[in-house]
């Protein structure tokens, strides 16, 4: 399956990427499992404190399912306003 993965703010700087497209074996996964998988290449995914995630632009927990074609975003805690 193919996923679009986005990184924001300090996480994007630490990884050196804002976005990438990744191919994974078919069958679906979870956001938490995806974090572990990508963390092998991008250690900041595992070391960033209080990392948050969204699937298809909806904030979610680590157990949220990820399917082919989804847009998954990882980011540090928000600091707007």
């Amino acid at each position, binding site marked *: 399956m193919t996923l679009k993965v986005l990184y*924001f703010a300090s996480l994007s*700087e630490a990884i050196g990427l804002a976005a990438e497209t990744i191919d994974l074996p078919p069958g679906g996964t979870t956001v938490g499992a995806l974090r572990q998988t990508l963390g092998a290449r991008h250690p900041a995914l595992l070391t960033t404190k209080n990392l948050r995630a*969204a699937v298809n*632009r909806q*904030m979610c927990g680590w157990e949220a399912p990820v399917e082919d074609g989804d847009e998954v975003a990882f980011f*540090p805690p*928000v600091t*707007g*306003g």
Partner: protein
Amino acid sequence: MSEVSVQQADFDVGSEIAALSADDPEAGAVASFVGLVRADKLCAPEVGAGGTAQVAAMTLEYYPGMTEAALAEIVAQAKARWQLKRVRVIHRVGRLLPSEHIVFVGVSSSHRHDAFAACEFIMDYLKTRAPFWKKEETPAGSRWVDARESDDRAAARWEGKET
């Protein structure tokens, strides 16, 4: 008028406040909040206690599409909790200088209690649930602003409360 805007451009506080109650004789209360870029050194501890350095500029990053949707969801929650007439949320992005506007939240209602409470609720949720990230420029370099526990506590106090 859209309820939610994410934009680089500045906004005019007076005309935004006026629009909240324009042509609405039943609007008895308008409450608003304006957030500004603060030129202090509280958020730059590496400058040191005796430092005189200040934040020279702030850059706001966001997640196009998701940020607007998150703000719209926060507005919908506010409308479900209080009797509101109009709501307007504007958040600026890009590079901003001290004293510039960052955020505007305004609500109109028949009565002040709903207006005050909804305005505060929207800001508290925006600080913790809308994807914006601030990066400060100081003489010691650029740094991302850390999330504050006090913001989480401010948002959490609304949970389980009707108003």
